[in-house]
């Protein structure tokens, strides 16, 4: 199952709710959600812990737009829109954590 998160982890509980609920699989950060995978934030430790359980991906066009493409936490998997499509295709279902 693919979980898509588009909210900032620093102002919303959405990513946390997703991490606490989902059983594993793929998580993709898009839009404002991409800040979760940058180095040095207050949620970095939480993200690193989650990476043991989930494959964490980030939509690079969204991270580049925010000027943080060079600050990706190691181990996070960068994708472009084609990669996003492939993630959606390779998982049976897709849940957008709106």
């Amino acid at each position, binding site marked *: 199952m693919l979980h898509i998160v*588009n909210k900032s982890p620093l102002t919303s509980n959405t990513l946390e709710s997703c991490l606490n609920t989902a059983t594993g699989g793929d998580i993709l950060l898009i839009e*404002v959600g991409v800040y979760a995978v940058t180095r040095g934030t207050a949620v970095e430790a939480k993200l690193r812990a989650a990476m043991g359980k989930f494959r964490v991906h980030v939509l690079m066009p969204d991270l580049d737009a925010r000027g943080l493409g060079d600050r990706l936490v190691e181990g996070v998997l960068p994708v472009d*829109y*084609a990669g996003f*499509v492939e993630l959606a*295709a390779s998982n049976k279902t897709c849940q957008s954590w709106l």
Partner: protein
Amino acid sequence: MKFGIVVNEGPYQHQASDSAYLFTKAAIENGHEVWRVFFYHDGVNNASKLTEPPQDDRHIVNRWSKLAEEHKVDLVVCVAAALRRGIKDENLAQGFRISGLGQLVESGIKCDRLVTFGD
């Protein structure tokens, strides 16, 4: 693979419509079918033909219309949501059609994958 897309937010205010468009375009370019895009809630505002963004900005409505024309994507606007927000046949952009929520459920049934973009 057959995709259904859901768009919950209007143009310009929130990135959702941009993300949905770029996803749809990438899906088609990579050999998938996008069977239907369902515009729901404020998403119906993507269908206004009166939209006129600044010259140096993207034209979100026209992008959807062009996609529909070139790739036969079915752009469906939720009728109840549209009436609440003043989207009707008289201001409906090319390539969009107005129909009921059943079309969203049908997307869920007929498509291999349903991907939602919203707030």
